C-alpha cells in the first residue's frame, strides 16, 4: 500500500509539472495569436492536458505490463543438452513407472489377502473369547445363589450333608447309650434278683439239711422202738433220701444261677462297652467339619474371584479383538491410497508423453509455458493426493496403524 501511494504521488508531481508547463506555454501562445485562431489553441491545449492526464493515470499499469516484455527472450530453440537431459528423464520414467504401478497392485493384493486372513482369525478369536466369557459368567451365576452366598453350588450341599451325617451319628450314639444304660440297669436289677435267689436257695438248703437231720433222728427213734418202729424207719429213710435229693437239686440250681450271674456280668460288660462312646471323638469330628467348612468357604471365594477375573479378562480380550477388527479397516484406506497413487502414476505417464511431444517444439518459451502448466497440474494433483492421505488418516482416528 505504501509503495503504491509513493508511486502515485510521484506521478501526480510529474503530472502537475506538465500541467503547469502546458498552461504557461498556453498563456504565452494565447498572447501572441489573434482571436480567430484562439479557440483552436484552446482546443490544442485542452487536448495536450487531457493527453498528460491520460498518460499519467495509465502509467502505473503500463509499468507492470511492461515488466515481462523486458525478460521475455526472443524465439529460441531448446538447447540440445537440455533436450537430451529431458529425453533421458522421459525414458527413465517410462521404464520405472510400470513396475511401480505393478508393485502398487501387488501391495494391494497382499494387504487384502493378509487382511482377510486377519479378519477370519480375529473373528474366530472374538467368538471364542465370547464363548469363554459366557461360560465363565454361567459358572459365576451358578455359584451365586439367590440369597447371595457363594458356596451353595459346590460346597454347601456337601457340608450340609456331612453335618447331617455327624448329627445322625450323634443321635445314634445317644440312642445306643440310652438303651444300653437302660439294659445295664435291667441287668443290674436282674443281678439283684439273682442275689435274692441265692439267699432263697440258701434257705432251701437249710430246710433240706434240717429235713435230713429230722430223718436221721426219726430213723434212730424208729430203731429204738424195735419191731413197732419198722414201718416208721422205712418212711424216715425215704425222707432222708428226699432231703438228699433236695440238697443235690439245690446245688444244681445254685450252680445254674451262678452261671446266669456270670453271663449277666459279661452282658453288663458288653453293654457297658456299647454304651460308652468317646464323646471327644465326636467333638473332634465336629471341629474338623467346622474347619473344613471355613476352608471350603475360602476355596470357594478364591475360585469365584479367579472366575470373575477370568471373565473380566475374557471381556477385555473381546474388546481388544473388536478394536483390532475395527483397525483392520485400514484395508479401505490402503485401497484408496493405492487407487490415488496408481492414477497419479498413470497421469504422470501421459504427462511424459505430452512432454515428449513438447520437446519437438522450436520455441523454448512455448516449451517453458507448457512445462509450467504441466508442473502446476502435477502440483495440484499432488496436493489432492496429500489431502486424500491425511483425510484417510484422520478418519481412522485413534487407530495407530500409520
Amino acid at each position: 500500500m505504501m509503495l503504491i501511494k509513493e508511486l502515485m504521488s510521484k506521478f501526480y508531481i510529474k503530472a502537475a509539472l506538465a500541467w503547469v508547463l502546458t498552461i504557461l506555454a498556453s498563456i504565452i501562445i494565447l498572447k501572441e495569436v489573434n482571436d480567430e485562431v484562439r479557440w483552436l489553441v484552446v482546443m490544442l491545449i485542452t487536448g495536450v492536458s487531457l493527453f498528460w492526464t491520460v498518460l499519467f493515470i495509465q502509467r502505473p499499469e503500463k509499468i507492470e505490463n511492461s515488466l515481462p516484455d523486458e525478460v521475455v527472450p526472443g524465439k529460441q530453440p531448446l538447447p540440445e543438452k537440455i533436450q537430451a537431459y529431458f529425453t533421458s528423464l522421459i525414458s527413465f520414467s517410462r521404464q520405472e513407472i510400470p513396475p511401480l504401478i505393478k508393485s502398487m497392485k501387488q501391495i494391494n493384493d497382499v494387504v487384502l489377502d493378509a487382511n482377510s486372513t486377519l479378519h477370519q482369525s480375529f473373528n474366530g478369536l472374538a467368538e471364542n473369547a465370547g464363548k469363554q466369557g459366557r461360560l465363565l459368567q454361567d459358572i459365576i451365576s451358578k455359584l451365586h445363589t439367590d440369597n447371595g452366598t457363594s458356596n451353595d453350588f459346590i460346597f454347601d450341599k456337601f457340608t450340609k450333608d456331612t453335618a447331617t451325617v455327624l448329627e445322625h451319628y450323634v443321635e445314634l450314639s445317644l440312642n445306643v447309650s440310652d438303651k444300653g444304660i437302660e439294659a445295664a440297669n435291667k441287668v443290674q436289677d436282674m443281678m439283684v434278683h439273682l442275689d435274692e435267689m441265692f439267699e432263697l436257695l440258701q434257705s432251701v438248703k437249710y430246710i433240706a439239711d434240717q429235713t435230713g437231720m429230722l430223718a436221721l433222728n426219726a430213723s434212730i427213734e424208729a430203731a429204738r422202738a424195735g419191731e413197732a418202729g419198722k414201718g416208721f424207719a422205712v418212711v424216715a429213710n425215704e425222707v432222708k433220701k428226699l432231703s438228699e435229693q433236695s440238697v443235690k437239686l439245690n446245688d444244681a440250681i445254685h450252680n445254674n444261677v451262678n452261671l446266669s450271674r456270670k453271663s449277666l456280668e459279661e452282658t453288663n460288660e458288653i453293654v457297658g462297652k456299647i454304651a460308652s462312646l468317646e464323646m471327644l471323638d465326636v467333638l473332634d469330628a465336629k471341629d474338623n467339619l467346622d474347619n473344613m467348612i471355613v476352608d471350603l468357604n475360602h476355596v470357594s471365594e478364591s475360585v469365584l474371584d479367579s472366575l470373575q477375573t477370568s471373565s473380566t479378562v475374557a471381556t477385555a480380550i473381546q474388546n481388544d479383538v473388536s478394536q483390532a477388527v475395527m483397525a483392520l479397516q485400514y484395508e479401505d484406506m490402503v485401497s484408496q491410497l493405492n487407487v490415488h497413487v496408481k492414477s497419479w502414476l498413470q497421469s504422470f505417464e501421459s504427462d511424459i508423453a505430452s512432454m515428449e511431444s513438447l520437446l519437438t517444439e522450436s520455441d523454448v518459451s512455448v516449451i517453458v509455458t507448457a512445462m509450467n502448466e504441466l508442473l502446476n497440474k502435477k502440483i495440484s494433483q499432488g496436493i489432492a493426493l496429500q489431502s486424500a492421505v491425511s483425510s484417510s488418516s484422520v478418519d481412522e482416528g485413534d487407530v495407530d496403524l500409520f
Partner: protein
Amino acid sequence: MNVESVLSENGLTLTISIWGEFNFMVLNEFRAAYNNDTARSAKNIIIDLRKTETIDSSALGMLLNMQRSLKKSNREIRIINCNEVVKRIFAITHFDKKFVIE
C-alpha cells in the same frame, strides 16, 4: 466313692456330684443316688459336675435314664458347673434342650 448325693436341709433339693470320670464305671452308684425314696421326694434335682473331668456317651445315657425315671414327678433337673468340654458335648448332643444346663 465317685458319686455323692446330698439332700438340702429343707429336704427339697437333692444334689448329686460326680468325681473324676463320669462313665459306665459309676453306673450303679449314680443310679443308686436317684433311684430311692429320698430322691423321689425331693422337689429339685441338681447334677453338680464341678468335680467331673470328662464324660462319655454312657453318662449321657445315664442322664437320659434318670430323666425318664424321675419324669413322672414333673420336677426340674438342673446340670450345673460344667467345664468347657462337657458344655460342648451337651451342645452337640442337644442336651441343652433337654436339661437346664448352667
